[in-house]
């Protein structure tokens, strides 16, 4: 089985276990302030790391290319409270324009 299939099935199983677990345990199990603070930060660090890697990494090298311009435009769009599709499409158009014309 390929790595991709393992990832698809494995991550689907653990995602469901996460969801089902929450519905099935007594509330006090997870009701700890420190735990909640850390858990609020977990998505922030993981998703930030993904933004960094997907913007700058080319295999194991760090590069500056059209993607950075696209992400920059996305951040500006978010700053102006643009809806999600506008954020994504404006990033794509910017990146594509630079890639195709330079």
């Amino acid at each position, binding site marked *: 089985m390929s*790595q*991709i299939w393992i*990832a*698809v099935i*494995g*991550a*689907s199983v*653990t*995602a*469901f276990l*996460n*969801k*089902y677990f*929450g*519905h*099935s*345990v007594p*509330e006090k199990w*997870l009701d700890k302030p*420190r735990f909640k*603070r*850390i*858990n*609020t*930060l*977990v*998505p*922030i*660090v*993981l*998703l*930030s*790391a*993904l*933004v*960094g*890697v*997907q913007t*700058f*990494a080319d*295999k*194991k090298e*760090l590069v500056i290319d*059209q*993607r950075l311009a*696209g992400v920059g*435009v*996305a951040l500006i769009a*978010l700053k102006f409270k643009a809806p*999600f599709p506008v*954020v*994504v499409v*404006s*990033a*794509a*158009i910017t990146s*594509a*324009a630079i*890639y*195709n014309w330079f």
Partner: protein
Amino acid sequence: MSINPRSNPIDRTALSVAFTVGLYGAAFGAAGVTAGFSIIQTCLLSLLLFSGASQFAVVGIMGAGGGAISAIATATLLGFRNALYGLQMAPILKVKGIKRILAAQITIDESTAVATLQENDADRKRGFYITGIGVYVFWNLFTFLGALGASAIGDPSVWGLDAAVPAAFCGLIWPRLKNKTQFIVSAAGISWALILTPLTPAGVPIITTVLLAIIFGWKK
């Protein structure tokens, strides 16, 4: 239960959230195919995993050349907040057996958010189910369309898909950054991942940022 978005404000909120979020599914579908997943593999993630951030993480890490283990670990940690949502929803929904399995599957950011906006348990229930089922339907539909669209495209850079994916992540993080500490933690996460990228196998720079969450979250 009949759904009536014209006269019922809960239904209206639930369905507009479901449709808007569903549209992101197209970005995910495109991201999956761009990362080297087949259309079926991409659609299965939406059908089975069904949690946006975790799904993007799986295709992001595998696309960057990471292994299945780091993809699964990252997705699992990202999905842990759904356990907390389940904890919140369980006393309101009071479901068992197959119904609990179905309720668990649609326990995500949006269904919980719409539920918590309501005033009483009956409305919370209604908000939860209509949003959850609505997002499920639209998210899967648009995933398929996005995957189909992206697979018709050759080089993803020509269409800007290489920037659309990190832009989609920015859209997921943005609403979570509510104070200065969270901005600093976000910047620390980016820096950490970039420093490790040339040094470690793909995937490691991402999953290890959890240490930062523990360090920053340990003390109040």
